[in-house]
């Protein structure tokens, strides 16, 4: 019996489809840019003048144009949306607050991460194991999620988050560190939660 090898298929780095289907996605423009810089030979095969001239379709010209117009509209909308999201991300900041619980103990709270599509639960787990401490996700007064970590690990957390943002191409985002010695009581409860998470 001869072994049948699996066929390998290229998938678009932007929309995840095989590139020949990118034309049907709202990210078509970025798909093409990705393909050109990563797999030029496939790009030529799909989008060179020659390839486009040889393309046959049973759709009437009129229908084909209508389809193209619809897709173009969809793509423009998507691009505008992505631009808005990017601006929102670039204009927001992450805050790491260092809170004194008593003379020796601190916790830090990290907020402002939600706009960056970062999995908060996962990140809190990462912090817990990285810093060998307790970490938990809670909702703050503005009903936004924040991560609480036990211990004075503000600098380490900042470094880690900056690396994470850099991976997403968001180096411009500021990570702000602040010291909070007041409001102790209000945060006691939250700290308790962090302590519990640490024991698990």
């Amino acid at each position, binding site marked *: 019996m001869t072994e049948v090898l699996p066929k390998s298929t290229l998938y678009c780095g932007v929309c995840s489809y095989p590139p*020949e289907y990118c034309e049907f996605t709202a990210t078509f423009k970025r798909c093409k840019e990705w393909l050109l810089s990563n797999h030029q030979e496939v790009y030529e095969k799909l989008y060179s003048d020659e390839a486009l001239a040889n393309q046959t379709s049973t759709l009437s010209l009129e229908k084909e144009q209508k389809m193209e117009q619809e897709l173009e509209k969809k793509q423009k909308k998507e691009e505008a949306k992505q631009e808005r999201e990017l601006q929102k991300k670039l204009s927001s900041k992450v805050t790491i607050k260092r809170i004194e619980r008593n003379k020796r103990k601190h916790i830090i709270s990290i907020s402002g991460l939600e706009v960056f599509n970062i999995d908060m639960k996962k990140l809190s787990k990462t912090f817990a194991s990285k810093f060998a401490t307790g970490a938990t996700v809670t909702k703050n007064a503005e009903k936004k999620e924040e991560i609480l970590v036990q211990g004075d690990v503000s600098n380490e957390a900042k470094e880690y988050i900056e690396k994470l943002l850099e991976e997403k191409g968001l180096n411009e985002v500021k990570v702000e560190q602040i010291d909070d010695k007041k409001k102790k009581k209000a945060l006691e409860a939250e700290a308790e939660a962090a302590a519990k998470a640490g024991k698990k």
Partner: protein
Amino acid sequence: MFKKFSKEDVHSRSNIKSSAQRGLKGNFVSQFEALEPVIDTIIPKKSQAILIKCEDKIQLYLIDNEVVLFQHFDDLIPTLKVVHKYPQCFPRVQVDRGAIKFVLSGANIMCPGLTSAGADLPEENLEEGSIVTIYAEGKETALAVGKLLMSTNDIKSINKGHGIELLHYLGDGLWNHTE
């Protein structure tokens, strides 16, 4: 089927017994005979399949962190990633270019989209209920997997109404599912 599928639809995960794994392979091959020479590559003898039970009685089978097939009642259905690897193993139909955007939005396929000039159906009849892989005019790779709601002979002769129930397509929740 996976239009709105997400991680929240996963109920449980469990390793399946090796006897059950052999049974699964046997059933998959009896459904798609052409899988015979490659089944041990798709589900290697030494691998451990993981069963993921989901909402709506859907069951996914995971090998090496990749979903390779799913089960809905008695049907075993390959994922598109597997179809792309072994396209020759599954019966195929082709929709015309005009139908592509509807397929990619998860809609069932209407008969005319399967019988027009740009479409293609196999010469020999495929029974109602068969699982088919769906290709498109001018494209090389499959874009969906579905179940025939009518035999292909009926699709050709009646040529009205829904011909294929769409089960899985590029960009749906299963396509985007990561472990």
